[in-house]
């Protein structure tokens, strides 16, 4: 909310209808926290023109470290004047302050007189003592507690921790300080976060304890683009532009010593539409031919409309790869593609979930004991597999129900029907009992008794009985066929 709105009577937290009733000509815009944050990041990077190092202070502040930089602007006053001038030129309102610690500068900028400058030699408590305790960057509930305790200004808080203003003698003074600080310390003894503990905040403000800040580091993403004189409508021209972009991108990435993992291709159409195509690579690569080939599959359904005027290629995720010497003889001998290129081509055409590798998972249930991972990811660390039993070569996605003839419900299967064909069980090994995982499943889940069987024609299967008769978890147990042995 700006000053004009506040003068007209609108307040933060007010409902929009009330605000409109108070001030009919009020202008509103929807909240955009993500956009504000992005703008603030940009502003923090821009603010590094006054100092080598800056940090975000969400939601609406920027901290700049101007240590040993003020003389470049002709002193601290002129530096602040320059800051205000620059912000006004961008159409932004700003309140500025300079202080030896980040906490003190924040307090002065939010609650102090404008353009305050506190030097390192000055008594900080005297300059800051009149500010409200809200200047300590505390949470709202802590502020309520402090207000109930009657501590309204920074001076009050400092007075408690430092004892009565004039100490009679040195011993008395130190005793007072210890008792006041102990009382406050006990009050907030289990508040570890600085924003919830006024003592930590006060010490940070006075520079007694260090306050770590996260600096903003600008990071540029490799990006190449072509603005086209004549909008293109044909695929062959687009392929040509893409070739050029891929070569530019390869040069850019080579200069950084990186390879792209994710690429975004943006096509700006004349009529204002933007078409974006994403591509993710199995391993970092900067080969122009590979990139072009992968994008060629993605460009089949592009509707050029009245023409495409700008094409932009961005590597939003890049990983370092070492420069490799091209070996002429080796490439001549080892024709064909590398594994990463092969995986990329398969993934682009068939989708990321079609190309996977099985990795073991700690589970007793056969279908849960395998997890499917992307093919070139490093193998997760897992315990060695215990192999007491043979497992089938192939496992059906869903175990198929079979009709089984048996001598007794708990006995061995003698004959079963699967997919309309009757199989005579000749040889059999089992049962191997696999109990449900009680720590994960409901108590009504039935156990499984697995049998490895061979029928009269030598076909080998892995079947199980789901539950045992009389286990109180349902009627007569069903039989399922789950795996095909080699």
């Amino acid at each position, binding site marked *: 909310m700006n000053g004009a709105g506040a003068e007209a009577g609108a307040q933060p937290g007010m409902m929009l209808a009330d605000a409109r009733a108070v001030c009919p000509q009020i202008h509103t815009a929807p909240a955009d926290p993500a956009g504000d944050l992005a703008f603030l990041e940009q502003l923090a990077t821009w603010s590094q023109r006054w100092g080598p190092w800056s940090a975000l202070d969400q939601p609406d502040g920027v901290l700049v470290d101007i240590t040993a930089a003020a003389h470049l602007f002709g002193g601290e006053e002129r530096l602040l004047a320059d800051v205000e001038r620059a912000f006004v030129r961008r159409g932004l309102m700003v309140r500025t302050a300079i202080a030896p610690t980040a906490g003190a500068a924040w307090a002065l900028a939010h609650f102090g007189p404008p353009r305050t400058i506190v030097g390192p030699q000055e008594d900080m408590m005297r300059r800051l003592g009149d500010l409200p305790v809200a200047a300590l960057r505390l949470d709202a509930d802590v502020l309520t507690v402090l207000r109930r305790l009657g501590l309204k200004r920074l001076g009050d808080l400092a007075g408690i921790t430092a004892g009565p203003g004039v100490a009679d003698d040195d011993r008395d003074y130190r005793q007072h300080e210890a008792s006041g600080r102990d009382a406050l310390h006990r009050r907030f003894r289990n508040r570890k976060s600085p924003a919830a503990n006024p003592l930590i905040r006060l010490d940070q403000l006075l520079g007694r304890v260090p306050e770590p800040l996260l600096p903003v580091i600008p990071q540029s993403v490799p990006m190449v683009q072509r603005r086209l004189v004549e909008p293109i409508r044909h695929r062959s021209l687009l392929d040509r532009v893409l070739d050029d972009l891929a070569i530019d991108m390869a040069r850019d990435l080579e200069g950084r010593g990186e390879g792209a993992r994710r690429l975004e291709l943006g096509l700006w159409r004349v009529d204002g539409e933007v078409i974006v195509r994403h591509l993710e690579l199995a391993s970092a690569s900067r080969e122009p031919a590979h990139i072009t080939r992968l994008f060629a599959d993605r460009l089949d359904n592009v509707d050029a409309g009245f023409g495409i005027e700008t094409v932009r290629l961005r590597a939003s995720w890049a990983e370092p790869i070492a420069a490799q010497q091209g070996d002429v003889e080796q490439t001549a001998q080892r024709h064909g593609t590398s594994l990463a290129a092969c995986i990329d081509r398969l993934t682009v055409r068939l989708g990321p979930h079609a190309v996977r590798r099985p990795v*073991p998972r700690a589970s007793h249930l056969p279908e849960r004991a*395998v997890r499917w991972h992307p093919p070139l990811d490093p193998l997760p660390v897992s315990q060695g597999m215990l192999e007491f039993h043979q497992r089938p*070569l*192939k496992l059906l996605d869903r175990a198929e129900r079979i009709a089984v003839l048996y001598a007794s419900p708990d006995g061995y299967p003698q004959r079963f029907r699967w997919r309309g064909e009757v199989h005579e069980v000749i040889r059999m*090994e089992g049962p191997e009992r696999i109990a449900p995982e009680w720590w994960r499943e409901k108590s009504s889940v039935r156990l499984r008794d697995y049998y490895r069987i061979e029928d009269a024609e030598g076909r080998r299967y892995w079947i199980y009985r789901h539950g045992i008769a009389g286990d109180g978890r349902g009627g007569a147990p069903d039989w399922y066929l789950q795996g095909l042995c080699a």
Partner: protein
Amino acid sequence: MPDAASSPGAKAPHAFPISRRGKRAGATFSPPTDATLSAGEIAALSKSREGRWRPGLSDQPWHSEIFSETADASGAGLALGLARDALSAASREDDPLAEPEDRRQVLWVQDARAVQRGGRPYLHGLPHELRDRLIHVEAKTPEDALFALEEGLRCHDLACVIGEVVGNPRALDFTASRRLSLAAEKHGVALWLIRLEALPDLSSARMRWRVEAAPSTAPRWNAAAPGPPAWKAELFRARTHAPGKWTLSNDDGNLYVHTPATTRGDDRRPDASYDRTSYTRRVGSRRPADSGDLVRATVGRSLAAVARG
């Protein structure tokens, strides 16, 4: 069994022009680079080419097809057995500079119907050395499966490619199989394509097998349990070998020819005597003496086909 000398190849002209063939790694018989061959050389050539297939041959074709049913995993089992056999044979012959352990990946491509009908490979049931080297591709259509197979064959970092396609899809015609053959031979990556529930239509595969499950021998310690996998395999079309039928067994990672005497007869009781000597272990160039009567004589192969090889 009639010797190869009685085959039409022996009644050859005295000199036969042979085109210069590219040298393939691991060929048992490398033809002389001279443009002509004498009758004796042709006889030796035809004999070496028309020899019966046996496990452990180093001259494995790059493209084989295996026809089987979806009701059992014998197709996948035999494909894995043949693939491991070929890879171990290739690693025996390779130069000493090669890596001691093969760490290349194996690509296993299935189309959606193959996954639905026959399931997908199960990690804990795979051979040990393949467990962390398998990349599985699930293609929705046969066209996508063929694309994945061809991309895999073009990749020089793969040990081999195994494919499973159900039926006779329109996309898998002679042209497609020829593409696969050429890609496999050019880049030196072997392909075993499992054709589930398919008719043996026109194809350019160098070896074509038909396989079904066979009763296994009884394990030594539990005679009532199913033993190591065994298959009745029929090689019904091969470019360099005579057709034949074998009962193959895959025990502790090696492919054996299983003598017919040890297959179970009518009695349903498992054969308790487990005699390792009844197997013919594949060793070097020793000829499997006991599989001879299963192989029929080579007929109808022209000399030109032999020389073209």
